[in-house]
């Protein structure tokens, strides 16, 4: 029985293959294209066992040189030009299930087998994936269709023609006004812009409107949201305790960058490597907070090196997914399963980021220290004096130290504690006669130790030994009682040399209890005495210097590079584990992409030069794709997160390249110019109405035969409602604020922090200023698809849920907005409710309401009015205790306003 049926199977299978193959060869006119025909088959069926992760039987299909190499069998599986002798073809066609590939899965389709055969016959050439090839200056199609306004439309029109579709006409002025305002400034335009645009008959009116919006400071606030998602900006540190972090100055830096149209290459460079640029000022330091938005683990007992490493890994992944639209994180554990990135290349790339000074400390060092005015003057004096009396080099060092407290050695580097411990995993703490070790301290020319410490005891001594506990006593430092607060102190030490191991001992016979902590250290700095002792003005300068150590400062976490003494080696992590270190690596970029530019240093600055090199195929394309997605709802490559071979294919590759090329060259990386070109296109200005035919042909509007109609973001929705109800407080910048949210949202273990609703108008600030706690984000932000920003949010996926309806219907914030709007239209929009509703609608949409819509709302008004006329209590409640306005008319209008704020056309841009 079995024999017979097996034979049948074989005969059938062979027949199918032969027939399929024949049919294929007869009808195959064109040369096989690797990217579109072969790679998808390999990705789907073969790569999971024969790719970057696994290379079963010694065979991998990722790179051509691997695929043509000898396998474990001693022979190659692919013989270019000779499909019939190629083991690969034999194994996908053989009938024995133990041999047939893909193993344990359905066999390839006949057509797929034919493609692979023909491809091998034609020489088995590999093709480079489009996104890894340089950006081309695409020739612009030259249609003369009247619909076309600019070059974007040429590309769009060409595809529409291919798809047998025709574009829509321009949307009406009112719709366009609202659409472009929400897109460019994230909220409604101001009254004069509205008036100018609607009344103008100039053919230039739309362009003038666009220019005014681009020049508005609200433009920067709108586009900052996009960047904060990528930068994973939040007001807390994440993980279990999720404590506060003061990093809002970075948010303000981004707003200014967008408003000043900082060229994108410069924008990236400052964020990646501002600290490494010559003489960094505060703004450059703050820009580097981009990569300090990584999470810090404050949970006691965690391994600092583990979370330092996690932050570095996150920086690598964010740089790739955020700036280069590539899922690089797979390469952390193994070579990329689908894309041509090798395991080692991940760690070469990581090495760029592995020498920053941060170490998952509780204080989140290094921090930029920003002084108040009078202290700034002292700082300037110190720097000037050192420059004049010592050297320029020294003055720069002192400036850096006073601004950042770097370089210093965190006490968490101490180990080998006896009668002491690393307290909560951050601070070296010693009890009486307790000891610990500090390795790798360079002591050449070091004449003093500066240290930050805390002790509640008199009479303690800190004994520093060289090389071992029995070694030479370098210094016995008497420790003044700081009465439980942190102090910085200095002690001279005799000069010695070399990179040495130090042993510390705390001695204080006054402490009787063996369990009592004697001293806690936070950091050390081994350095030289303050210079210029013999020079005039030394005393006052030195005093200023000491004052500044204790000055009241605002701080922001920033990037600072390790100096030579603290240089960290980088290694491959075996299978991605930070504890299993493999071969040493130095900074480098994947071989498949552009090389590091000539003369680029092998640090973050060099990395920034590589990213912004016009030869980099990913950076410009990724940003163009992202900006397009902001305006149209979908990217030209739908998967913003992945332009690799597993991502979606671009719908308009030529247009993407045309815009990317122009962005880098003609526009010199100006985002405003690029955005302007897009919103001026006829493509963008189209009406968004759709009909059944079009809906069937192009449900997702992939070919742009109509304008974008998409739901507003959480921020846009709240901001436009605040604006139209006249509550918006347009104050820019500053600490994050806390608008109303329901009780019981914040619930972090080990953290009693509370949400305290902001007052004085701060509860009505634009949404990008809303405080974001990672483990408990602002509810309406999450309901409308914002994220917790624990890691880079590459794309917000829009949803449409009943919870969103409940939010805008019932959230007290929305009721307050409805009240204000109702009172406004009753006061300023005519006498009778019908006129008021009409006018209110026009304030929202800049166009008259249709009769049917008006009737529905008047009916609602009447129902509400009748009810409130009979119910004083409900009337009062509807007005929230505002007795001046507590009448049935206003209460009924609040209900109508509440309905208006829930209209589909309000929640969407049309």
């Amino acid at each position, binding site marked *: 029985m079995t024999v017979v049926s*097996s034979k049948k199977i074989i005969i059938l*299978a062979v027949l*199918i293959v032969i027939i399929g193959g024949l049919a294929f060869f007869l009808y195959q006119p064109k040369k096989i294209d690797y990217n579109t025909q072969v790679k998808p088959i390999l990705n789907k069926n073969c790569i999971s066992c024969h790719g970057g992760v696994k290379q079963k039987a010694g065979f991998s299909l990722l790179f051509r040189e691997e695929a043509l190499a000898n396998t474990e069998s001693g022979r190659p599986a692919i013989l270019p030009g000779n499909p019939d002798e190629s083991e690969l073809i034999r194994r996908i066609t053989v009938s024995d*299930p*133990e041999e047939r590939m893909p193993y344990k*899965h*359905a*066999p390839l*389709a006949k*057509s797929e087998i034919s493609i692979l055969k023909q491809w091998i016959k034609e020489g088995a050439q590999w093709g480079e994936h489009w996104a890894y090839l340089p950006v081309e200056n695409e020739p612009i199609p030259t249609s003369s269709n009247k619909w076309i306004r600019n070059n974007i439309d040429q590309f769009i029109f060409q595809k529409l023609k291919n798809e047998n579709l025709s574009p829509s006409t321009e949307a009406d002025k009112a719709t366009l006004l609202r659409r472009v305002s929400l897109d460019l400034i994230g909220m409604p335009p101001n009254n004069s812009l509205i008036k100018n645009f609607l009344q103008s008959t100039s053919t230039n009116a739309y362009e003038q409107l666009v220019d005014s919006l681009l020049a508005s400071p609200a433009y920067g606030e709108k586009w900052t949201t996009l960047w904060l998602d990528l930068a994973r900006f939040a007001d807390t540190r994440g993980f279990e305790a999720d404590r506060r972090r003061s990093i809002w100055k970075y948010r303000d830096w981004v707003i200014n960058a967008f408003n000043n149209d900082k060229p994108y290459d410069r924008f990236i460079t400052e964020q990646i490597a501002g600290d490494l640029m010559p003489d960094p000022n505060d703004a450059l330091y703050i820009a580097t907070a981009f990569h300090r938005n990584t999470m810090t683990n404050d949970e006691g*007992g965690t391994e600092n090196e583990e979370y330092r490493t996690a932050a570095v890994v996150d920086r690598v992944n964010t740089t790739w997914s955020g700036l280069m639209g590539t899922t690089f994180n797979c390469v952390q554990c193994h070579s990329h399963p689908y894309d041509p990135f090798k395991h080692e290349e991940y760690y070469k790339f990581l090495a760029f980021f592995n020498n920053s000074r941060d170490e998952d400390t509780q204080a989140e060092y290094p921090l930029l220290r920003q002084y108040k005015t009078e202290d700034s003057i002292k700082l300037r004096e110190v720097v000037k004096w050192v420059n004049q009396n010592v050297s320029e080099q020294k003055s720069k060092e002192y400036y850096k130290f006073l601004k950042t407290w770097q370089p210093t050695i965190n006490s968490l580097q101490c180990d080998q504690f006896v009668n002491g411990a690393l307290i909560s995993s951050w601070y070296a703490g010693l009890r009486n006669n307790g000891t610990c070790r500090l390795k790798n301290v360079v002591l050449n020319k070091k004449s003093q130790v500066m240290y930050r410490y805390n002790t509640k005891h008199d009479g303690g001594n800190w004994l520093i030994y060289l090389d071992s506990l029995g070694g030479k006593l370098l210094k016995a430092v008497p420790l003044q009682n700081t009465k439980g607060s942190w102090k910085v102190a200095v002690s001279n030490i005799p000069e010695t040399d070399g990179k040495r191991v130090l042993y510390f001992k705390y001695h204080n016979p006054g402490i009787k209890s063996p369990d009592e902590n004697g001293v806690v250290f936070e950091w050390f700095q081994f350095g030289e005495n303050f210079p210029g002792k013999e020079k005039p003005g030394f005393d006052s300068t030195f005093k200023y210097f000491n004052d500044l150590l204790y000055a009241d400062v605002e701080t922001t976490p920033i990037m600072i590079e390790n100096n030579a003494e603290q240089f960290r080696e980088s290694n491959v992590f075996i299978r991605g584990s930070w*504890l299993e270190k493999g071969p040493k690596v130095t900074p480098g970029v994947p071989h498949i992409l552009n090389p590091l530019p000539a003369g680029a240093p092998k640090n973050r600055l060099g990395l920034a030069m590589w990213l912004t090199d016009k030869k980099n195929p990913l950076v410009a394309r990724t940003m163009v794709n992202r900006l397009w997605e902001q305006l149209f709802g979908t990217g030209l490559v*739908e998967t913003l997160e992945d332009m690799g071979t597993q991502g*979606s*294919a671009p719908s308009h590759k030529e247009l993407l390249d045309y815009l990317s090329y122009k962005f880098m060259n003609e526009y010199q990386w100006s985002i405003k110019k690029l955005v302007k070109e897009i919103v001026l296109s006829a493509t963008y200005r189209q009406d*968004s*109405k*759709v009909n*059944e035919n079009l*809906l069937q042909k192009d449900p997702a509007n992939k070919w742009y035969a109509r304008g974008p*109609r998409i739901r507003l973001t959480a921020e846009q929705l709240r901001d436009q409602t605040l604006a139209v109800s006249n509550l918006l407080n347009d104050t820019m910048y500053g600490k994050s604020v806390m608008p109303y949210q*329901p*009780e019981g949202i914040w*619930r972090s*273990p080990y953290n009693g922090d509370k949400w305290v609703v902001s007052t004085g108008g701060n509860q009505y600030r634009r949404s990008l200023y809303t405080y974001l706690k990672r483990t408990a984000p602002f*509810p309406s932000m999450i*309901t409308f698809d914002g994220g917790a920003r624990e890691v880079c949010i590459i794309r917000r*996926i*829009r*949803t*449409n*849920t*009943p*919870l969103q*309806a*409940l*939010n805008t*219907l*019932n959230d007290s914030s929305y009721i307050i907005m409805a009240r204000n709007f109702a009172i406004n239209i009753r006061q300023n929009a005519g006498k009778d409710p019908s006129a008021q509703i009409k006018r209110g609608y026009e304030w929202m949409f800049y166009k008259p309401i249709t009769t*049917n*819509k008006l009737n529905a709302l008047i*009916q*609602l008004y009447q*129902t*509400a009015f009748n*009810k409130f006329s009979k119910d004083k209590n*409900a*009337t*009062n*409640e*509807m*007005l929230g205790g505002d007795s001046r306005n507590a009448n049935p008319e206003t*209460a009924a209008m609040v*209900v109508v306003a*509440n309905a208006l704020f*829930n*209209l*589909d*056309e309000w*929640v969407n841009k049309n």
Partner: protein
Amino acid sequence: MTQQDLHNQRLLKEAEQKVMHQHTRRHFIKESAMGLGALALGSMFGSCGNSSSSTTANLFDAANPLAPKAPMFPGKAKSVIFIHMAGAPSQLELFSYKPELAKLDGLECPQSLLEGKKFAFIRGVPKMLGPQANFRQHGQSGTWMSDYLPHLSTMVDDMAIINSVTTEQFNHAPAQLLMHTGSARLGRPSMGSWVTYGLGSENKNLPGFVVLTSGGNNPDAGKSVWGSGFLPSVYQGVQCRSEGDPVLFIKDPAGMDRDLRKASIDAINKVNQQQYEEYKDPEILSRIAQYEMAYKMQISVPDVMNINDEPAAMHEMYGTSPGEASFANNILLARKLVEKGVRFVQLFDWGWDMHGDSSGNAVNIGLVNKCRKVDKPITALLLDLKQRGLLDETLVVWGAEFGRTPMRENREGKEMLFKGRDHHAEAFTIWMAGGGIKGGVTYGETDEIGYSVVSGKTEVYDIQATILNQLGFNHEQFTYESQGRPFRLTDVSGKVITDILA
């Protein structure tokens, strides 16, 4: 070395050899060669439609996205309660009886079990940790279960316990994503979304897919484990809270009664309908449906979430106390929800990650306490469903994202203060009951120390395939077209575990 030590060493060696032997590929192929051949042929002829995917239209009616729909074939189950113990409890203390492991307690783990393996926290050479619980046989089936779950062990004859589940992920968030979305990366629809998409909802006034969390935290993977991925967003899970407002903003504003809210939503929808006539965007219809649903939810959610009116006997049986955010309350709510026609109730209880870093996280202390909080309610759920005649049509699934190691965790290579086990992807337990599942079954085996599966290897995809099967779906044909290709919950894997079907 004592006689006993020698004996133990031999045991370990044998366990090791068994694992190696069972895992050689040749052995596996011999077992299943015939089956594979038949399968291959079947798909050769049967799946011609695979490439011409344009014929597989998506089942989405924007005007009425939650209308009840018939499955592909009559399923045994109408709804699912998936109880996920987030953090992953130890199978070795609950269901997987390993007397041999007890004998190895305290011995160093042989290098061969560690080579090429990666653990979340174990470093260097850990020691073996014997089972901390006592096991006994229960019921007519004689199923082994530990004394950590004294109530549940009375239900063994209704349960199919799968001791041979394996996963690909050993970190919480990705493993939870894999379990619930079929992918360890973000962006795929969750199982509950698939089910609601395929079956719609039988109750127009409640979401088809409800999520209840307890234990003080959301699951590690966050709300993505109940997200709708590329499916229309109406199918995402709706999180309900068992204290405060059951759903945020569910209460009408002060001064607005139900009639007025009704009038207001009617007006909104009338205007939106006008907007639809003009724009023909199906998303507008979807929004109209969402507003109707929101209105109904305002009544039905507080109603169904209110357990005050349950009889005292029910509270006694479930161990519930109204007003608390507890697992017991959530379990009782789950019963109420499926009774009302909710398709998929997803429970997450946080706090099962027993690493041994504190007493609360010790497999012999914290785990016992956690079990106490869930044992009675889960048992009550099975009994209650049974007495209401609902167990036959309700599939109850209990599980987690992975299992725990037979070795004792030694974080940073150091002995820990308490007894804990590290994350383990290679073998863990999931059980199912009701909804056409055979009772009294123990399926699949691991080796003598519970390290690796030796028979009945069950992938996460197989669990998903079985759940879909019980609801009336062939998991290979239940697809959704997205980005130009059909996707399915089980990706390219999954087979129904036929041995546990009634």
